[in-house]
């Protein structure tokens, strides 16, 4: 099956053992879809057409079904992102505790608006909805890590520390 991909190399999971382990956990193949997408994105940085084809083959469904998931869930990206995805929570508790200032800070410092990536691909800035850490607002998730109760100063130090 090769409906979604433009001519490009077939995507292969770097660690087949991990794929086997994922499948062994579920009573059916399709339930492994999200876990395989996470694994592929950790390897590639984003979900390409060939990733979708490979996963569709593995879980035995049409690539459109996998694409359906990719487009539905906010954590999957169909294009390459910056090395550091700066995800600023903008929902109410963060908003009333200075989240907008954090977004402005990145915009001013690196000349990128939400949704944009710096030319050197170091940072992608995103505004995201509630990260579930309202008690330590404002909160920013950078890649997998939460950074809580940020001030502009601490945020700045944090950004500087990222390669």
């Amino acid at each position, binding site marked *: 099956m090769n409906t979604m991909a433009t001519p490009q190399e077939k995507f292969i999971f770097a660690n087949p053992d991990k794929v086997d382990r994922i499948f062994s956990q579920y009573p059916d193949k399709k339930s492994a879809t999200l876990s395989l997408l996470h694994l592929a994105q950790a390897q590639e940085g984003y979900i390409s057409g060939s990733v979708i084809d490979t996963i569709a083959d593995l879980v035995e469904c049409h690539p459109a079904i996998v694409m359906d998931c990719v487009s539905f869930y906010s*954590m999957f990206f169909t294009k390459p992102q910056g090395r550091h995805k700066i995800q600023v929570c903008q929902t109410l*508790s963060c908003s009333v505790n200075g989240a907008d200032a954090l977004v402005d800070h990145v915009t001013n410092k690196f000349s990128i608006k939400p949704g944009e990536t710096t030319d050197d691909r170091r940072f992608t800035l995103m505004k995201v909805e509630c990260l579930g850490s309202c008690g330590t607002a404002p909160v920013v998730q950078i890649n997998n890590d939460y950074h809580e109760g940020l001030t502009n100063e601490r945020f700045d130090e944090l950004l500087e520390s990222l390669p």
Partner: protein
Amino acid sequence: MNAFKPVLTEHIHQKDCHTLPFYKSVGGYKALEKVLAMQPDAVIQEVKESNLRGRGGAGFSTGVKWGFIPKDSDQPKYLINNADESEPGTFKDRLLMNKTPHQMLEGMIIASYAINCNTAFIYIRGEFYKEYQLLKETLAEAYQANLLGQGILGSDYNLEVVIHRGAGAYICGEETGLIESLEGKRGWPRIKPPFPAIEGYLHCPTVVNNVETLACLPHIINHGADWFKSIGSEKGPGPRLFCVSGTVNNPGVFEEPMGISLKELIFDRAGGIPENKQLKAVFPGGSSSAILTAEEALDVKMDFEDLVEKKSMLGSAGVIVMDETVDMVQACLNIARFYAHESCGQCTPCREGTAWLVKMLTRIVNGQGKPDDIDMLYEITDNIGGRIDFSKGSFGKTICPFGEAVAWPVRSFVEKFENEFRSYIQQVEAVA
């Protein structure tokens, strides 16, 4: 009220409280030992009698939910731990997972035993990566100690627990959306009935319980249903994790008996409002609840009944405080934008309505509001949410309660602070 001692969070400030040795040192897994010597029906009966109501938001009786699982079916049964915590203002399950994951796991094993389930899932929200890593260690410890796997603690009971990561979708906290998501699809809620207890994951009988709900179970087994019922409000007893955030001095998770006054939560536990500013409005139960004015907030008990009387709800017990400096129109837009982003797109009133709300509120905030916008906001919220009647199990005009979850708060902002909306619009008229 007698001095209340935390139950779920008693040990969270102690060193290594997340580890198995620590949990065992404070009586952990004693309830499991007890349960393994009981008949599953007796476990269900005990939980029914405790009147434990779900801590995720809907507040349905846990024991009754379990009781719907058919006993004569030879299909596999599944338990899913709903750790997809994403209701704005709610951050208690994350705390439980970080600090006392074995308490939650013990609850999962008890629940699984009660419904005769041999494979259980933890559906954790995708963003909680650190917690996901930690839970993997928790499971490894439990397998090592024969608390999971084959022949648990020498009994003939087997249970596998699988951690499944979500991928960023609020709607997957709704139990049928969650099940669809676990099956490898977009998280579109299902039409009910059939309820998951009859036809859930892979068409098999399934129970979905929230993290905090599960964490209550070992305590109910250890101390009995009567003890649980003696804590807090009669019609929805037990300890409850209240999350307080927004404009307060000391935001956080506070474990209190059901029925504590909201005033005490805000001004005592959460330290009141910075710079002694005035309280303006409060979400009592996550952003899906109708907001309360300051006057209403100072006169309400945090339990299922009292909040329904105030035409709001306890929901996920996520309290968001807004002081006098918070602009109600902008706060309303913030919440509407959240729901527009998270609408799954399945039902037209919600998919289109949430987008319209954002457009209209944006226009009002930008000084381009029209005089009849207020009426139109009411009309749209009615069209999304309908007039819900929980007593009849009504779900408004959409497949799942997300419709009400946006209609209620938006409508409450407009109803209770109509002046602020009007003043935005009148400025426009004055300019025109």
